[in-house]
Structure formats: C-alpha cells, structure tokens
C-alpha cells in the first residue's frame, strides 16, 4: 500500500511517502506512524474520503492532506 503525506503531515510522518506491505486488510489508523486523534487531516483512500477506521489493503492508494484555506 502506498501512502502519501502532503503539507505539514509530511513533517508529522517524517517522510513524504510510505510503502507498506500488509498481509490482511487493516484499519488505516493502525498502520500510520502517528495518531489521528485530535488532528484535522483529510484522508483519501482510492480517491474517496476515508478515516482512521477505513479498512485498507495492499493495493490501496492513500493520501493524507492538510485542510487548507486557499492562496
């Protein structure tokens, strides 16, 4: 599974992208290198809105993005 971290989320994750191998579908929140609790983060799984509870699998594309306000 590929996970992209955009904006300040990349600082939180310590990287801009992460490749994870998971044998069985798992909750996204359990795979991330930081807690989602109390944080305002947009989660996209395969172009659809997701959450920490979303069950993800190895072939999924996940993007975590900050909430932004425009230029």
């Amino acid at each position: 599974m590929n996970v992209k971290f955009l904006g300040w989320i990349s600082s939180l994750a310590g990287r801009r992208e992460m490749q994870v191998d998971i044998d069985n579908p798992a909750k996204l929140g359990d795979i991330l290198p930081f807690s989602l609790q109390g944080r305002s983060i947009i989660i996209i799984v395969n172009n659809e809105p997701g959450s920490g509870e979303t069950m993800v699998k190895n072939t999924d594309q996940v993007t975590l993005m900050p909430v932004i306000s425009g230029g």
Partner: protein
Amino acid sequence: MHGWNGKILRVNLNKKTSAVQSYDKDFALNYLGGRGFAARILWDELPAGTDPLSPQNKLIFATGPLTGLPVASSGKIVVAAKSPLTNGYGDGNLGSRAAVTLRKAGYEALVVEGKADSPVYVLVEDDSVEIMDAKDLWGKGTFDAEDDLTATHGKSAGVLLIGQAGENLVKFAPVMSQKGRAGGRPGMGAVMGSKNLKAVVIKGTKDIPLADPDSLKELGKDAYKDIKGKESYDFWIRQGTMQALEWANESSCLPSYNFREGVFDEAKGIDGYKVEELKVDRRGCPNCNMQCGNVIKDVEGQEAELDYENVGLLGSNLGIGNLKEVALLNRLADDWGIDTISAGNIIGFVMEASERKLIPENYKWGSVDDARTIMEAIAFRKGFGNTLAEGVRHSAATIGKGCEKWAIQCKGLECSAYDCHAAPGMALAFATSSIGAHHKDAWLISWEIATDRSGYNKEKVAKLIELQQLRGGVFESLVACRLPWIEVGFALDWYPKFLKAATGEDLSMDNLKTAGDRIYALIRCFWKRENPDFGRSWDIPPERWFTEPLTKGPMKGTKVDREGYTRMQNWYYEMRGWDSNGIPTRKTLEALGLADVAGALHIA
C-alpha cells in the same frame, strides 16, 4: 465608542477638499467595518447606474475593529468600489502598513470621490490631509513609485498605489502595496486610475481607543504564542500557501492549460518544495507571525514574491513548469499593478485561442516569452491587449466562435486557481461569491474533498453558506486575515474575545455571522440595482466544467452535472432566504434590518 474611531475621512478630488464624517455605534455593530462599511456606503451614496470609471464612483479604503491592533494577522485593509470589470460590487483586501496607519490617524475608512485634473496622491498625516502633485510618479511601476514615496515621507508611512495597469484603466488592475501585496481584483486599481489618483500615503500616530487595552495586549500575546505552538506552524513558515500546489495537483484541481485539466505533469518544478530550494526571503503583512510571501529570484535575477494563486495561474495554467519563469511573470504583474490571477487566466485563454487558430497571433503553451508579451500588451493596452484589458468575458465575446465556453469566469471576474470539474460545490461557491469567482468568499473545496466531492446535496450547500458567512462576512469586515484559522487551526473563539477587549461589546460568533448575512444580502441587492437583469443566470460557473470532462489524472472523465448543480443552486437560495431568482426576499431583508433596501428595490 471603543474599538472603532467612529470616523470616516472623505476626500473630494474635484473640489480638492476633505471632511471627517462621524458614524454611530449602530452602524459599527451592524456592518462591523471593512467590507461591511464599504457595501453600505456604496449602497447609500452611489447613484444607481453609475459608470464605474466616472468621477461619481467612490473608492473606499476600509479597516475594521481589529485592524492595527496587537492581535494576529490584523494588518489588512479592504479596498472597494463599483467594479469596472463586473459592473457589480467589487472589493479585495491587502496587507499594508496603510491599514495600521489609517486607524492610527483616527479613521476606519477613507472615501475618495471625484477626479483630479492631473495626477495626484493623497497624503494623510493624522488630522492633516493634503492633495499632492504626482506628475513625477505617473507612468512609474509600483516598485519605483513606492520607493519614491517612502523616501519622501519616511518608512513609517503606509502606501497604497497603482502601477501602469491602473493608470491605463486595465479592468482587473488591483491596488498594490509593499511590492507584492495586492487587493481589489475587480478593477479597484482602474477606479483609482480613473480618478488620476496614483497613491494614498498615510501616517498615523494616535492611539486607537480600546475598552480594555491591558487585556487586549495579553490576549494578543497569548494568541501569537498559540499560533506559533501549532504543529503545522513550522511547515507553514517553510512553504506558506505554496503547499497548496502539491495539494491541488494530487486532488485534480490544479488549473492547467486554461482549466482544461486539474493535474500538471511538471507540477514538481513549481511546487512548495521547489520554493524552499530557491527561497531568499520571506515577506508578510504588518502584525503577522505567519508571513506567507515567499521571495525567490526570477530568471532575470530580480526578487519576486510568490504565493499559490500566482503560481497556479501563471504556472500550470499556462503550461509553465519553471518556477523562476513564473516568478518573472509574477514580478512584472506586481510592478505594473496587474492582477496575477486574472492575468494568468486571460493569458491561458489567449494561448488556447491561438492553439485553436481563432486569433492571428501564434502563442505557445509553456512559453514565458509569449506570456510576457501578452501581459505587457494588457498592462499598456497595446494592440489586442487593449481588448484583453477589458477582461476574459469581454475578450471572449469579442472573439466569439464559441470561446465563451472556455472563458473561465463568473460574473465577469476570472476564476482563482481551483479547477472545479471534480468539485461541484466549489463551482457553486465561485458562482455565488459576492464579487465574482474569487476564492476569498468562494471556498468549499477542502471540506468537499474531505467529505464527498461527487455529491450534490444540502449538507454541501449549508457548509458553503457557513464558510461564506465567516470568510466573506466576518473576516472581511473585522478586517483580519483568515489564514491563521484554517491553515494552522487557530480557534475562531479567539475573535469574540479580541472584540470584547477592543470594543467592550459581547459579540458572539452568531452575532458576527448575522452581520455577515446582512452584508451578503446587501451586496446581492447592490448587484441587482446596478444590473436589472441580475438573477440566477449570473450564478453559473464556466461552461467548460459542465461539458468537457477531465482527460487526465485520477478524476479522469469527471465533469459537473448540470441537474445536480441546479438542485444545489435552488437549495442555496432557499437556505439564504432569497427567491428562486436569487434575490433576497423582503422577509429576509427585514429580518436583517434592511427594510429600506427592500423598499428601494421595490421588493414586494
């Protein structure tokens, strides 16, 4: 009265006179300041049908009860007038020392009326007001002209001015300050030029009257500390709004090739990480600890200040993937005093017209030289640039042949840097924004992508209205920058606390939102009064988003569904308390204290 000086300065350029007008607390509480003051003054004082470039139009510089105070991001000023670009209400805000000095000179607003016989600038020094000769400044770019004025009047002076584009009445010339700050996209700079007014220079030394200055000082300190402590703060300082470029590209909403696509193959060459590589300085507005102006050296070695909107429109929208080339275009636009968003939008339109062989000129996507040629022709109204200087709507109508479908504008104002093929709620936001397609009011895309970007539902409409209340109503009238709130999560409940300490008034967020609704309804009525055919057909986004699906990226094949859009448009009017043609009902206007406005429009 605390928090507000209670005074508006008026300068008449015909009569070469000035006067001070007092206003009362009711006016302050109902309209707050900034946009609210400007909208009410224009409604009350402008004769219906006023030619925007005539001496009868009024140019308003307006601050609010938070401007210039020692609180977060309060160094902004609104500039407003009837727009020569859209023929409706026009305004914008910009960061400037002049925001602070106007308040310290003892005024919330400066209203400029009439037209000078020859180029002038207005000099305000506390109670002294002079109309000064500006013949030596006329014809200069904003960078040199501001240097000259600062050399004459000192660094403590706030300067608001226009470049050659404003002098030449380019209809999307904004007002500029501090070599890169711009506000008033719908031609506020052209209105200034039409008055032969090159600049406004303001010096102020007075104290702003405050209810509880000690508490405000403490609150302000705490707030700055709170902002600096947010976990997103450090990254914001690194990239500022430029982080939006990667965000938009990943989300298929980065305008590319005249808003044909939402992704750009060369995005990495112009994104926030590229800015970090090239950055030589950072600039910002007064009273801000989130300075967002990233300065890099352009291809000619000159400094240029970048933010996302500039780069989206002058970069990917033109097929330019070299940030130093984008910076060159940005610097020229800032110096000539031409709006970067509209300029990038119109240059993209011209490049597409050339590609389709609808115009004789041969311009190429990705060519910075061609982009510069077009921009210079616009700023100085040379050749076809004279037509383009009227805006993309007018240019499309002039060329014809169906190109109106890909003239990317709403109500005549060119769209900011968010492609909406795959964001129907954001399309509605652009279409219902109170000045035309500008992201200041028009904002839903972040929430929409996070929740349900393909849906057409009432939740989306309700969220849009809430965001318009806050962004277009509250922040534009207080006047304070919205960026701390969303970008680093600075809580909204700070603002009633600031207001309590400044004014002594208990103003809840609900009170402020109601003021926002009042201001929105009044602006809507202004559009109707100035444009008798104004109605729901004016609230439609560009045809391209309905008919030409994206051909690239993860949202390939997506476009806005017209029926779904119409449903959301209907819900929007219902929730606003407007009729099915998008005009506020008498009941709505009366509830907002605008019965006189209903009467003037003969709303039954």
